[in-house]
């Protein structure tokens, strides 16, 4: 496993002295970095796999930078919504490690199918963070090329993308692109609420029986808008995989290292033709479901405070400081970079041109359609009936 990967490996290494079995902690949670920033060298998950990562100092710092930038840009987008510049925003606050860990575990050839909250994965895929803001500002439909960045369009419909991902992954297998280190893997993101959707369960069945090279990556952020996890399931979500016939594992979603290790292992299994698997990244949505939501109406402050202590960035920073991998200059430099990128993002959002209403007829068919052309004509006529219309 993981050969040719300088950054990390997930098995086959001799356990370091500080290694421990997962049983000594939460028996069901793969964790390599404790909330206080203590590093665990390796851990054997409930799936029997020994998980470990071995990053260089530069890579550790890079992960920290990703986490901070992703959080800052997300906060800026939330502020822009409050200031009337975006119609809506779905904040990822609290879920940075789950997204950066899995996002960085993807290889260039891997394909990702996001929900509408995967701003961190989008960032890791190298897409300009301005892209989803056009969508939420209502000036475009999301402007990146999914094939170029191997990152599909945001999907608003809950769980629908798991079926798209399953079909895509089945296609990858049919094209014979699996079965080696350079094989392709697919990852489908969804939340705990989506696990109650028929689409997701159908995707589980199809991916399983067709041995699709697919990783189901569930960010269990504890709430489906206002509905708590205990209203979704009576068993830990990762255990559902067993019923569909593929492995499932739960990872500390606020631990970027463990998330990376678990995701990399599952993706490599998929690309090697070992079929699908389910990762439950156990995390917490620190903010609102979207800017239209008020979480104080359905959850108590003490719960939020308890998760505050498990913050993904704080533990990474504590680790970097303790191991002297980074100093205060580095942290200040990252904060300054985040501030600059946030301001840049803000200015570019404010400068986004409003599209002409008639452009909604563009890009529906590559070569147009008579029906649509007629509608466009009607719309132009209607639009001309207003005073001051340029048409």
């Amino acid at each position, binding site marked *: 496993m993981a050969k040719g990967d300088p950054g990390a490996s997930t098995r086959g290494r001799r356990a370091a002295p500080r290694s421990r079995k997962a049983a000594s902690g939460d028996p069901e949670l793969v964790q390599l970095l404790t909330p206080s920033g203590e590093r665990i060298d390796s851990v054997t998950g409930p799936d029997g796999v020994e998980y470990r990562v071995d990053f260089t100092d530069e890579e550790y710092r890079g992960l920290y930078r990703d986490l901070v930038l992703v959080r800052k840009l997300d906060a800026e987008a939330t502020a822009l919504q*409050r*200031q*009337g*510049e975006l119609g809506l925003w779905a904040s990822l606050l609290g879920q940075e490690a789950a997204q950066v860990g899995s996002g960085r575990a993807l290889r260039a050839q891997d394909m990702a199918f996001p929900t509408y909250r995967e701003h961190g994965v989008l960032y890791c895929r190298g897409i300009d963070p301005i892209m989803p803001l056009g969508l939420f500002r209502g000036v475009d439909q999301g402007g990146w090329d999914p094939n170029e960045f191997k990152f599909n369009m945001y999907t608003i419909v809950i769980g629908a993308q798991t079926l798209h991902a399953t079909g895509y992954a089945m296609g990858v297998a049919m094209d014979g692109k699996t079965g080696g280190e350079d094989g392709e893997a697919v990852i489908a993101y969804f939340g705990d609420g989506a696990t109650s959707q028929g689409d997701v369960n159908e995707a589980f069945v199809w991916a399983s029986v067709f041995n699709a090279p697919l990783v189901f990556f569930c960010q269990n952020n504890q709430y489906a808008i206002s509905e708590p996890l205990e209203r979704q399931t009576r068993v830990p979500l990762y255990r559902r995989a067993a019923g569909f016939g593929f492995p499932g594992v739960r990872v500390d979603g606020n631990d970027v290292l463990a998330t990376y290790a678990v995701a990399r292992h599952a993706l490599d299994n998929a690309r090697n033709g070992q079929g699908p698997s389910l990762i439950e990244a156990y995390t917490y949505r620190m903010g609102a479901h979207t800017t239209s939501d*008020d979480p104080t*109406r359905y959850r108590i402050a003490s719960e939020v405070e308890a998760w505050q202590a498990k913050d993904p960035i704080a533990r990474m920073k504590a680790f970097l400081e303790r191991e002297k991998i980074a100093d205060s200059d580095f942290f200040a430099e990252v904060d300054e970079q985040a501030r600059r990128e946030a301001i840049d993002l803000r200015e570019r959002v404010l400068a986004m041109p409003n599209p002409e209403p008639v452009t909604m007829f563009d890009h529906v068919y590559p070569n147009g359609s008579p029906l649509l052309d007629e509608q466009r004509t009607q719309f132009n006529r209607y639009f001309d*009936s*207003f*005073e*001051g219309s340029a048409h």
Partner: protein
Amino acid sequence: MSRIKEFNLPDLGEGLTEGEILAWLVKVGDTIELNQPIVEVETAKAAVEIPAKWAGQVQAIFHPEGTTVEVGTPIIAIDTDPGAGPIESSAEELPTPSAASLAAVDIAPAEGAVEPGLIGGPAPGGRTAVLVGYGPRTTAAKRRPRKGAAQATAPATPAAPAPVVTAPVVAAPVPVQAAPTVNGNGHHGGPVLAKPPVRKLAKDLGVDLRTLTGSGPLGSITREDVQQAVAASSAEPLTVGAAATSAASFGADREQRIPVKGVRKLTAENMSRSAFTAPHVTEFLTIDMTRAMKALDRLRGRREWRDVRVSPLLLVAKAVLLAVKRHPMVNSTWAGDEIVVKEYVNLGIAAATERGLIVPNIKDAGRLTLRELADAMTDLVQTAKAGKTSPAAMSGGTLTITNVGVFGVDTGTPILPPGESAILAFGAVREQPWVHKGKVKPRMVTTLALSFDHRIIDGELGSKFLRDIGDFLTDPEAALLAWT
């Protein structure tokens, strides 16, 4: 670009049209940073903090806390370059909501430019159709005027005939918002413009919006219009409904339609609610009150009671209060999964007034002496007759007496006021044949009727309570000696 920037309240949640300013987190003169929280706003969906859109100095705050502000309205002005010296006094720089920004929130005429059911168009229930969420609390979408729309927004034509059904009783002409059209029902087709909170207020106060002339934009009816209508009708003793009753004016079909509103509406709601939630039991007791009536006479003869209004009802009140002390359970409320028993008695006295039936209550009546009770009852009745009973005096009652005897009837089966568990009807006290000391004699006889909530009060308790009231009214002196 102007140095002073006004921040307009944004739509904070997918199609909302207004928000309430909960708290200002900054004040005029404060220096603020970009994205610093400046104000807490509550919408129909969430209470949120809004971060500052610009760094600078707070120049003006346009709306105090507690006000509801329409989306698009300026709420704060920020000087984005406070270090650049004093502001030149050009009209543009004045920290008042600019005309342009106010004009932006003008509501386009509801002339049907958008078809019903379309997004942005009128939806059932007077709401504007939106993609998701609860929908905004307004009836008109904001949009640009149509070319040649001037005719459609033509001046409101006054003095159109009033709706047929209310014509005989409505004095004021019905306002017309647009060119009158008449639909199949004989009503004006043009909808009455009013925001939902105003509609709710009017409904609560029993005001028919169709009878009002709106003073708001496009003739819409405002909160003030409704409140003025209420003030006008209460200043005038004859309300629309009362006038209709006394005048008994019938239409061509020899039927009269009286709008259900005000006290009548409230009474109807309360009685229906109570009658269909609390299982009522009514028990009757006929008693000889001769002795008690004589005691009242003796009481009236005392010097210190000379100026006090002493009625048989006073004795009944006293009897009820004493009996409650012996059976506290009757003074209680059914609260779903528990019964709330009260130590205090807020004694309701049902009063017939020109406005209809009202039930003011005497707070903590159990603690009053007989003299204080008498004064309180006199005061209560006079206030009620003057139509000045406050809402506070009518809420919180725990047990009620209804004096149907004043209408010359023997008794009735009263319905409990909501939240109370017992109500006593006091019938007329009349000279009737009665077996007294073995002989049939003319005596002052009355009938008591007690209705109680059978969920709380069993027949035994209700009977004992009624029996005690009867005992007191039969022989007050002995009951007082025995119980107190």
